């Protein structure tokens, strides 16, 4: 019996509107329902309707770390799609193309299907996607009952006609299979899934951040549309509603940051989400939240920058702006989730941190993770801790801005309507919030504002092969691909360690200790300046970046090569050119 493959990458490509995304979505769901691990990656055109689109699904028997470098099966809905994507096929890869749209010379590793024509024969023109899916399933020998099961689940909605639709779609699958058989091509034999012993959900990174924040008790959300953060606004408009909860579209990012500061001051757990241009506009407001000590959360879903930049491309170049968003002495807590699953916990932790240290917290995500869909362990809400600020309950005359020199809890925060009236002040102030320019107050409150960060000392981190003098330290959504590259190097028995945390500031103290011991910390990051390694160096660490600024994610193979070279250079004592 031929040996099995544990990992396939299927890419659908064509015009927006040709069912590219829905096909990928269906395949991903079908596979996840039977226990495969899946991850999707899509690119979108700048235009609204039509335009070249692609969406790919990686199916694996083990957790998927990245979108995958090469494609096993390409489904090309038009000529342009074939021309632009066939180069990414593996040597044994096969293309299925829509022969109603175009045709290819005989003899290549591809075959055409008259999708719509066949679909009609099922009595349901909408079943076209299923014909394609059937063909794909046949090529990778994915058992049909998996897809049948998905179809039954999807279309059993308790409506008259459900059965007809189910039947038509199942028929469509069979037609696709027949086409693939006719073609004689065969790409591999998908190994059986390991039924997961846990409840799972299929979700995107943006939805996971929103859900996490909601799980931590978010009350108030406002936002202004901007790619790739808009889906968080839309999610909130749909979900964050109820007694004392509301989500709302405001007129600009300046209004957004001001409104969440107002709501945070008034006692609400509040949040907004934006991308780089909006973050820049929030600069002054974030400084106010830091200065007046108002809890609130800002999510920055990065896209290519600077300025309006590249709205539909991925980049990790807002890190400086997130840590030091404003003039004056400010350094915000920054959480950078590296996987769809971490997005959920980042959303929750950000709300908790804001309440705990009474100040603004940044969640920094990015385009490649925003709409990435992945099946993850369903979060156990019982285990999600929910923190709320310590509200002041005493009598009036409370010193809200008293000095704070440490401990496990910050001094309480009065809430309007309750006792302890004070002025939340963006100018330097005394204990009750009146403006002052006396040195003593500026000194003690600067120390309070930075000292409070010490309360955020519960960030998790990962360390592997701790004794190696060299370590790779990715951040954000480059984590998965870096892990894939790291695993490859370890498989080659190259001596390199793994260090990671989504908590970039404050960095977990124990992790910092580990990093101090390294001769070299290599940071793969998607920006020009090497922003994170530059910050690590400013902390006194020996860090260096491997940068890429193409607007695209790293490829695991390429990254592995660059890491391997750098490690060898280091071992040979070479200073990099």
């Amino acid at each position, binding site marked *: 019996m031929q040996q099995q493959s544990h990992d396939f990458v299927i890419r659908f490509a064509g015009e927006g509107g040709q069912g590219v995304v829905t096909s990928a979505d269906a395949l991903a769901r079908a596979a996840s329902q039977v226990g495969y691990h899946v991850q999707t990656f899509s690119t979108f055109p700048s235009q609204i309707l039509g335009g070249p689109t692609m969406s790919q699904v990686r199916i694996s028997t083990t957790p998927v770390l990245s979108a995958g470098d090469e494609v096993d099966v390409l489904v090309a809905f038009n000529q342009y799609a074939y021309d632009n994507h066939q180069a990414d096929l593996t040597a044994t890869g096969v293309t299925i193309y829509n022969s109603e749209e175009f045709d290819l010379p005989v003899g290549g590793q591809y075959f055409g299907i008259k999708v719509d024509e066949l679909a009609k024969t099922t009595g349901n023109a909408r079943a076209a996607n299923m014909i394609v899916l059937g063909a794909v399933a046949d090529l990778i020998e994915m058992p049909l009952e998996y897809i049948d099961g998905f179809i039954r689940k999807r279309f059993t909605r308790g409506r008259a006609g459900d059965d007809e639709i189910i039947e038509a779609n199942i028929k469509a699958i069979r037609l696709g299979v027949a086409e693939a058989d006719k073609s004689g091509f065969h790409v591999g034999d998908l190994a059986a899934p390991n039924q997961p012993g846990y409840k799972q959900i299929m979700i995107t990174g943006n939805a996971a951040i929103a859900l996490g924040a909601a799980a931590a008790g978010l009350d108030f959300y406002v936002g202004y549309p901007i790619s790739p953060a808009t889906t968080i606004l839309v999610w909130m408009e749909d979900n964050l509603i109820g007694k004392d909860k509301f989500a709302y579209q405001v007129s600009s990012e300046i209004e957004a940051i001001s*409104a969440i500061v107002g709501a945070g001051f008034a006692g609400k757990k509040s949040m907004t989400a934006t991308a780089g241009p909006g973050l820049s506009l929030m600069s002054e407001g974030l400084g106010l939240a830091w200065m007046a000590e108002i809890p609130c959360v800002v999510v920055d879903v990065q896209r290519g920058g600077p300025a309006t930049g590249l709205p539909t491309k991925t980049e990790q170049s807002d890190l400086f702006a997130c840590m030091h968003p404003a003039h004056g002495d400010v350094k915000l807590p920054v959480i950078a989730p590296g996987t769809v699953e971490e997005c959920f916990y980042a959303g929750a932790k950000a709300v908790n941190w804001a309440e705990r240290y009474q100040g603004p917290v940044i969640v920094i995500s990015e385009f490649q993770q925003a709409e990435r869909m992945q099946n993850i362990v369903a979060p156990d809400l019982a285990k999600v801790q929910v923190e709320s600020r310590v509200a002041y309950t005493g009598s009036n005359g409370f010193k809200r801005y008293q000095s704070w020199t440490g401990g496990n809890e910050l001094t309480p925060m009065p809430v309007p309507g309750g006792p302890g009236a004070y002025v939340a002040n963006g100018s330097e102030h005394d204990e009750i919030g009146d*403006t002052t320019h006396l040195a003593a107050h500026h000194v003690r409150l600067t120390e309070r504002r930075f000292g409070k960060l010490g309360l955020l000392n519960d960030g998790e981190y990962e360390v592997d092969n701790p004794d190696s003098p060299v370590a790779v330290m990715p951040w954000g959504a480059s984590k998965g691909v870096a892990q894939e590259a790291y695993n490859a190097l370890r498989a080659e028995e190259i001596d390199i360690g793994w260090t990671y945390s989504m908590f970039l500031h404050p960095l977990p103290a124990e992790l910092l200790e580990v990093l101090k011991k390294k001769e070299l910390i290599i940071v793969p990051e998607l920006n020009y300046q090497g922003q994170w390694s530059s910050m690590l160096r400013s902390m006194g660490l020996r860090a260096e970046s491997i940068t890429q600024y193409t607007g695209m994610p790293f490829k695991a193979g390429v990254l592995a090569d660059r890491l391997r070279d750098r490690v060898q250079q280091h071992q040979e004592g070479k200073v990099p050119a």
Partner: protein
Amino acid sequence: MSDRNAEYDFKWCPGCGDFGVRRALEWALQAHTQEHETPQSNNVIVAGIGCSGNMVHLLEGDQPFGLHGIHGRTLPLAFGIKMGRPELNTVIVAGDGDFLSIGAEHIGPQAQRNVDLTCVVMDNGVYGLTKGQSSPTSTLGQLTSSTPYGKIETQLFPLKMYMSMGVSFIASHYSSKPRELAKLIEQAMNHKGFSIVHVQSPCTTYNDTYDLLKGDRKKGIPGHAWAIPEDHDPSSRQAAIDLLDRPGIPLGLVYQESLPTLEDRQEEVRSKARIRTVEQMVETYAV
């Protein structure tokens, strides 16, 4: 807040109009808390940056909550407070530069939402705290430190702008009549919706308009300020528009319209909406 805090080191200049406005605001807050039997802590003062905004630190007696943020953002800050906590009586104190120049973008949206806020705008036609530059309400040709050859922008007429933006409560007064002013501010607080009390509050140091406003009876010079006639119907948009076509500064309630507030509409949405628990939200993603 002088009596609580000897150290606070800002003082208004002798004769500054803001003294009168402070009195009026203190009286209005008292009246409002008494009438509604709410504690002083239920009041929140959101202050702009300027001599005027410093009022939040100069109020005397029992203290409300305060938010003294950044220049020009009183409205969105207050909007956030009010959207989250509709029960708080939220009052904005800001100057003409803060409210009408750098913060101008925020008036329209609050009007379209009819957020239940009360704004007390202290208009002195100049930037006081930065020592006398021109503001949107400075007059064409006015000499200021930043317009040595005269201002070359026409003067903005805030009351007309408020009308066109759909502000649902518009009053105009000046700082020399704190009792009357207090009444207007109290009315504004009681108005359900977005209220602006636009106050002429002269800057004795950089733009002293007292004589201009009051005129000089002995010399028989009429003042720019004139009391709105008894028979004016503030519920009539047309009457208000006609009123504002007259030159000078009207004193009194210009316009008041009863409209659904943001809070009303939020409740409407809540009643329509499919409200989910977090557990249910998670379920929607079940594979």
